[in-house]
């Protein structure tokens, strides 16, 4: 485990050197940053999906909401990170808490459909906000100002993203073994038993939902700074679907699975898109095959001892 972590960190550290050596280094470094950002988003989803068994089909809402937080404040001339980022994350926390109050009272198919519906509500909300670009999206003129750190420098943004990913993973790692994590994991396999033991499961799931939303918001903030652009498509339901694919493809309920999954899916998309404009024609069936035959995810290839995939969603 320790060796794997060190190796992964070493790889992450040298990526800018390698991409600098390639032609079009800017592109590859930007791509690497995108992978890291989506790895954070997938890790946050894994917290509630992989460990908590909550099949949220609206997780990209937090990604887009935080990105809009950065974009809208920037449009009003507020570009210091000290204000932008807390506001963006607070917006995610509030949205998660309010929608969580409704969705977490449901389970199964209802939960899936309602998380999807609330994300779509946010999507249409931003489509209707013409003053912030509506459907066309909002260009962010200036990146967040973070003291002496210049996020306009691609290498800096890359390393900041890696730092955030490491922080997210460390947080997850501690969380899932803690008392709180045990409650969340217990509720995944047996909600009924948890209630009989004396846990008011709803409260814990609500806090987990908020934590995951905020963590996904971190990814959204980074993405806004990477692309200097935000549009409703950031929170389109297909994005939420992709996040689920990343988690499952990598290995749900494992610490590093979502990171692998994010990298694998984005690289696969890039390769397919390079080869044909109709890349989704192939991606769709590939996802279907993953469901049918490779539920343990990529992480299963590396670690034969990792636990079998999570059982059904009991609710």
């Amino acid at each position, binding site marked *: 485990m320790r060796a794997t972590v060190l190796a992964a960190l070493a790889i992450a550290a040298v990526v800018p050197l390698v991409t600098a050596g390639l032609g079009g280094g800017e592109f590859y470094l930007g791509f690497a940053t995108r992978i890291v950002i989506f790895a954070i988003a997938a890790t946050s989803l894994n917290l509630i*999906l992989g460990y908590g068994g909550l*099949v949220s*089909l609206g997780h990209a809402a937090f990604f887009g909401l935080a990105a809009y937080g950065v974009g809208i404040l920037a449009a009003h001339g507020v570009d210091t990170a000290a204000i932008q980022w807390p506001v963006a994350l607070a917006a995610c926390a509030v949205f998660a808490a309010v929608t969580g109050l*409704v969705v977490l*009272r*449901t389970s*199964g*198919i*209802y939960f*899936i*459909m*309602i998380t*999807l*519906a*609330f994300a*779509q*509500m946010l999507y*249409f*909300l931003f*489509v*209707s*906000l*013409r*003053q912030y670009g509506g459907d066309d999206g909002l260009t962010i003129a200036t990146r967040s100002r973070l003291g002496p750190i210049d996020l306009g420098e691609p290498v800096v943004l890359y390393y900041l993203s890696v730092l955030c990913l490491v922080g997210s993973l460390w947080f997850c790692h501690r969380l899932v073994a803690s008392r709180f994590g045990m409650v969340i994991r217990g509720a995944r396999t047996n909600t009924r038993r948890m209630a009989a033991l004396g846990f008011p499961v709803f409260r814990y799931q609500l806090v987990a939902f908020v934590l995951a939303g905020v963590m996904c918001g971190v990814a959204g903030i980074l993405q806004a700074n990477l692309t200097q652009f935000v549009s409703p498509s950031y929170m389109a*339901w*297909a994005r939420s*679907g992709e996040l*689920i*694919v990343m988690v*499952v493809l990598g290995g749900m309920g494992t610490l590093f699975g979502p990171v692998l999954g994010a990298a694998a899916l984005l690289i696969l998309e890039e390769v397919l898109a390079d080869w044909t404009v*109709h*890349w*989704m*024609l192939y*991606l*769709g*069936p*590939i*996802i*279907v095959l*993953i*469901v*049918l035959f490779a*539920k343990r995810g990529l992480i299963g290839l590396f670690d034969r001892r990792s636990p079998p995939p999570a*059982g*059904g*969603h009991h609710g």
Partner: protein
Amino acid sequence: MLELLVSQALNGIQLGVLLFLMAAGLTLVLGIMNVVNLAHGSLYMVGAYLAAQMTAVTGSFLLALPMAVLATLVLGLVLEVATLRTLYQRDHLDQVLLTFGLILFFNEVVRVIWGPTALFVPVPEALDQELEFLDGEIIYPAYRLAIIAVGLAVAAFLFWLIARTRVGMLIRAGAANRDMVAALGVDIVRLNTLVFGLGAGLAGLAGVMAAPILAVESGMGDGILILTFVVIVIGGIGSIRGALVAAVLIGVVDTMGRSLLPMILRELVDRQLASAIGPAVASMLIYILMAVVLTLRPQGLFPARTG
């Protein structure tokens, strides 16, 4: 003012009718098999594309309609047998992923076959006119009225099917308590295939009828799918009556909200503020409605399931 109110209400009902066609089949499948099917919107899209294609070939929309509906129904049956059926025993996450993959596939297939630009289907000639009511006070397109009529006719047929036939009784019982029906020796898998095919045909019908009033394009089924979910959640999984009431409710609230809410707000608050937040609030209206219904009645307005 009256004209606006009436025509917006009719537009709302017309959207509601399309939503009902989408929701009717899906809610039964959800109720009987407890299976999530995101690809239901793809069937709607395929129905619309087939209508465009067959109208172009035959030159007659009215001829294209039954052909397209039938073809979508068959496609639905193939889908059910080839993919979804393998997933009934699996968890919801697998169903989400599988049908998500199917959506990506179908959205791309139509681009490959019909190209990336939207297709337009002419309104059938006989219905391509405006009807006048109340001495010309209210003018409304005949085709949209025809959609409402067809939708209500289908609703009546479904109520008859569910309430008066043996198959309908099994469907009702299956939605209420699947295990009991299985224990009675009914082939629940075949029953579901039947319902799935029916649902696919209805989704196709919705797509066909929407084709002359909407742009037929890739991804057109995604938005209506989510609205359909809202309808099913509000109406209660497995309930046809709930689907009808909720579909019309959602259709009317959404349509009226978008046109009336900004106007009402303009009376109440500053004009500039109103034009800023009016559309925003209107776009969220149905989801807020859903949240309220769920808070008051977690199982929807007409819960079908008992066990």
